[in-house]
């Protein structure tokens, strides 16, 4: 049974460019189906704005099925909105009620400068992955399955962390603007698997230090994990902290033997 929500008020952040002075703009949605996704609601609003000859609201989106990590949006003070374990694109209007006022803001972090309106640059997350989030050895074609035996619980734990879609919700939700959950998920994903062992500590040191060039530090609030559309646990951050400490001694020892 679909219902129609009425009288939704949107307070949306508008900003002309990276250096622009932003402001909240109020828009009314007189009617919307509760089956509409949150982004479809914004699409409908944008079509109306274009028809009225006004500029459409810029926001990030791509796959709209929660796997690409492109959508963002701080909705009513929560990254990806009130639904747990879901990206903004998976949020539907049935989560809201008629007459609601919904506040939409871009993600805010010094490392995530606003490009326009609700769209931010998340390039520093790519810098973190570039500094070690891969295996450097040429691997050739896909190896046979089960060539490297991996215990099921280990591969499951690695996959839980590999689920990270790099959306940056953890940074947006963190009161400190830290990217610890993102970095630790990427690290834990590779560091739990046998293929990741050879470069484990070099990876930990390089990625953590790149992270610290851009982001804040973890004070263990746990907001990141709650905002994460893939519900990645902050256990990963503890594993990262251990690996980083070990990397400091192990990498030095390795270098001193050269």
């Amino acid at each position, binding site marked *: 049974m679909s219902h129609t929500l009425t009288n939704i008020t949107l307070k949306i952040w508008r900003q002309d460019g990276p250096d622009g002075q932003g402001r909240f703009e109020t828009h009314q949605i007189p009617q919307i189906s509760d089956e509409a996704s949150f982004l479809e609601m914004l699409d409908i609003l944008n079509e109306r704005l274009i028809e009225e000859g006004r500029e459409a609201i810029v926001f990030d989106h791509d796959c709209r099925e929660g796997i690409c990590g492109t959508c963002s949006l701080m909705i009513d003070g929560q990254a990806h909105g009130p639904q747990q374990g879901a990206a903004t694109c998976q949020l539907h209007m049935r989560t809201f009620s008629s007459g609601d006022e919904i506040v939409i803001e871009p993600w805010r972090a010094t490392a995530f400068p606003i490009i326009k309106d609700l769209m931010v640059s998340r390039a520093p997350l790519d810098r973190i992955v*570039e500094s070690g989030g891969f295996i450097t050895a040429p691997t050739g074609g896909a190896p046979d399955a089960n060539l490297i035996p991996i215990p099921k619980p280990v591969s499951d734990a690695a996959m839980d962390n590999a689920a990270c879609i790099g959306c940056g919700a953890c940074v947006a939700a963190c009161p*400190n*603007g830290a990217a610890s959950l993102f970095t630790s998920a990427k690290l834990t994903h590779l560091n739990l698997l046998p293929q990741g062992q050879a470069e484990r500590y070099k990876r930990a040191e390089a990625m953590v230090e790149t992270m610290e060039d851009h982001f804040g530090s*973890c*004070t263990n*609030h746990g907001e990141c994990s709650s905002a994460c559309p893939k519900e990645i646990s902050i256990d990963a951050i503890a594993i990262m902290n251990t690996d980083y400490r070990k990397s400091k001694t192990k990498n030095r020892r390795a270098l001193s033997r050269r």
Partner: protein
Amino acid sequence: MTETLSRGPVTGTAVKAPAKKKPFVFDLYSTAVGKKYVMAITGLIGLGFVITHMIGNLKMYLGVVTESDGERAYDIDIYGEFLRELAVPLLPRTYLLWGLRLVLIAAVALHIHAAIGLTSINRHARAVKYQSARDYQIANFASRSMRWTGSIVAIFLVWHLADLTWGFVLPDHVVGAAYYNIDQSLSRIPVAMLYIVGNIALGIHLFHGVWSLFQSLGWNNPRFNAWRRYIAVGSAALIVAGNVSFPVAVMAGVVEYDPAAVTHPVGEENE
């Protein structure tokens, strides 16, 4: 909309520049993760101290005891003298105590230094705040007020030293007469309230700090993770209950200095 990316040379882990040449400890401390290690370790030292300090203070409830030589003295004063005489045949009097004090002073100094450094990093990481209200899901009052409760505890600590250690703010302070000083100080209602406020702030600080230190030190084991919260709640409750009981006991008259009960009352020994 085109965006110009400023990126350096793409560096794989294999070609990462050699680690910095700073000594290991300084290298680690220069990073945010390293500062969190320092926060956790110095916090653990502080936790060990406040628990020991609270247990030592419970001795005020034992009142007067008769020593083997027949002299009667307050048990907490005997305990104070014991601390000064720690390791005495091996080291001169108060040497070990001063050693422990230096460890504590260094821990407090590093804890504050690292906290200031991390606060500055975190402020810069979100220079422009959210313009609408945040709706926190997991972050609790304790975790979000660490800087406030920490500052209150630091100010309280200075007061506490000026009051019962140095006696700057306690006119009748007598060095070494712990029981007498406690009675004199905490009989003042505003001072007793200050002690209660300081200790509640400490309890809130520990509620998040003790849980947090397990994460910072990487002590994470799915089998024991639930215990980390229990340990945090337990140690915070223990400290608050024990320490708040002292001003309450003094105001209620449970702890009251009685010069007739001891062999050498305060005032006499100074003559």
